[in-house]
């Protein structure tokens, strides 16, 4: 398996009572609570942690959100650009570009191709629809996010694979001359990664032989979606997808002993405890009518997840090196080849984050690497790993 270091680059300095007063960590929480001097330290520290991951032999994952204290990486092309130059070997997984919310997909095609060239072919290119609250910062019609996602995807792929100017008159975008310079370093294009939470869109991912990633899902929920992917490829007579096609994101913390990890690693819960405003998070029309009906039917059920129950479900991976390796093995048994490690959340300091990263890299990763020996070189060459 390949392991990726990830932090959302949170801004952890807003008092809880302020977040409570606004009922949300996103969109409506005034930016007067952001101090750029503290923000400067945070950005540089987070980027340094990514460079440290490169030094440790880990891969890198980035994502972006907007108008939120939970994630101040507002542009993955910017963070990836810094890291493309400052890292030596790591894959840089952009997971991902929120396609419905980028007003110019041709510009996305250019940016990713440029990053791929600067990094000499180390980019994994993730495309996401974006969570519901992202429609507000971008002003995107929630009803149109899926069709914008698909049109932008089709346009970008065509821009990477067409050796001459072409014409595009779609529903959402129109161009008379698309002729992207540069072209991706990895030919015909970087590996494409797509995230998902429900079965409906999985066949679209499987049809295209893309990497399918799930975030913070329990073993059973993730396995179900992976099975939908496998069934689809079987129906189409495609080769059985290998471990290189499945990725999972977990909250991760490794320490010398279980007790220490479960004590210190509890700080990761910060991410799950942020205020989510129901109307902002699920804007009208973002989810389908049946999905909303199912959601409402379950809304009164207590969530009640604890650090312990989340460990049981595989959403949190925490413990001694032995325990962490065992938990990761449980994911591997479900066919996962990419472990996206959210090694940091909220106020967790650099020292603690790095201690966990180092211990993982030295004591756990060699064993994890052997579970599913995915070749970075073959991934970069677009070959089955």
């Amino acid at each position, binding site marked *: 398996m390949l392991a990726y270091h990830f932090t959302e680059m949170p801004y952890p300095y807003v008092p809880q009572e302020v977040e409570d007063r606004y009922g949300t960590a996103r969109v409506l929480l005034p930016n007067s609570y952001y101090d750029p001097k503290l923000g400067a330290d945070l950005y540089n520290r987070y980027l340094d942690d990514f460079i440290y991951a490169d030094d440790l032999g880990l891969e890198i994952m980035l994502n972006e959100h907007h108008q939120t204290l939970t994630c101040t990486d507002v542009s993955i092309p910017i963070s990836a650009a810094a890291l493309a130059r400052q890292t030596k070997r790591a894959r840089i997984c952009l997971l991902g570009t929120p396609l419905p919310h980028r007003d110019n997909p041709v510009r996305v095609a250019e940016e990713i191709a440029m990053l791929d060239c600067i990094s000499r072919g180390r980019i994994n290119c993730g495309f996401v629809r974006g969570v519901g609250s992202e429609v507000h910062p971008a002003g995107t019609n929630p*009803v149109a996010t899926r069709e914008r996602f698909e049109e932008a995807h089709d346009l970008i792929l065509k821009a990477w694979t067409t050796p001459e100017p072409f014409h595009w008159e779609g529903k959402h975008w129109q161009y008379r001359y698309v002729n992207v310079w540069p072209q991706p370093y990895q030919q015909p294009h970087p590996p494409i990664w797509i995230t998902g939470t429900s079965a409906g869109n999985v066949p679209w991912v499987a049809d295209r032989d893309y990497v399918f990633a799930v975030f913070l899902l329990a073993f059973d929920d993730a396995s179900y979606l992976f099975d939908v992917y496998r069934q689809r490829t079987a129906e189409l007579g495609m080769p059985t997808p290998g471990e290189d096609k499945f990725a999972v994101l977990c909250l991760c913390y490794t320490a010398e002993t279980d007790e220490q990890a479960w004590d210190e690693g509890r700080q990761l819960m910060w991410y799950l405890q942020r205020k989510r405003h129901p109307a902002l998070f699920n804007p009208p029309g973002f989810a389908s009518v049946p999905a*909303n009906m199912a959601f409402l*039917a379950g809304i009164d059920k207590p969530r009640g997840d604890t650090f312990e129950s989340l460990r049981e479900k595989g959403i949190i991976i925490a413990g001694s090196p032995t325990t962490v390796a065992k938990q990761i093995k449980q994911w591997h048994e479900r066919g996962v080849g990419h472990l996206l490690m959210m090694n940091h959340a909220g106020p967790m300091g650099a020292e603690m984050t790095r201690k966990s990263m180092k211990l993982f890299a030295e004591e756990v990763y060699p064993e994890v690497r052997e579970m599913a020996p995915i070749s970075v070189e073959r991934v970069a060459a677009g070959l089955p790993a």
Partner: protein
Amino acid sequence: MVISALRDHVSMWPLSGSEIEVRSGGSGPRIVLLHGAYGWWGWEPVHQRLAERFTVVAPSHPGFGSSPRLPDVDTVDDLAYLYLDLIAARGILPARLVGFGFGGWLAAEIAVRCPHAVERLILVDSVGIKTSGREGRDIEDPFVLVGDEQQRLFWADPSRQSVPLPHPDMNEDLLEAMLSNQEAAMLYGWKPFFHNPKLKQRLHRITAPSLVVWGEEDRIVSPAYGKAFADSIPGARFVTIPGVGHYPHREGVEPFVQSVVDFLG
């Protein structure tokens, strides 16, 4: 508000290779009622009262209620042409149009496209135009509010009535209709937010005698906005109803019906 079952008075009319849900009843001259962003909530008291004087025709726009969405119909521009086709096909030409909120915007778009297709125009707490500058917020956004906060925007007295917002305890048919309404409202109204920047400059084309009715305590679109709307329509009369909010036809059924009867005769 006592609302009869969701399906009462409903029939499906053919439209554009598909169909459209229409609530109808009563006798006398036909009036076409175009609903707002939260749709119809059944055969409502206002329908019943108007049906005593008129033949009420109250369609659900494509995507609202049980009207299916139509392919490539995703703007108010599309809806305006669709309704012009519908009223022509049903022989309701020229039509007496009454538009509520979002439906007022739609009625105005129909009237500027085809002035002779409209015999009388009544706009009720209508959205659709831009009156302020780029940093002005003419139209309040209820969709980012939940529960009571949202109810407070709609009613002068939210203790007496409420909008049937999607809720787990709701009857399944109503829940499905309300969720469909939300989706359709966003489809047509998301951006620019429930208005057409070009509409105001086109309102001079309207030739039908017009009435603009407004709830004095409307917190979604203010009476000042309503006055500006009326001032842009040649010869339009502007009346306000005291003690009601965004829904005069629900919160003040009697004075509202009286204003319609006075105007239409």
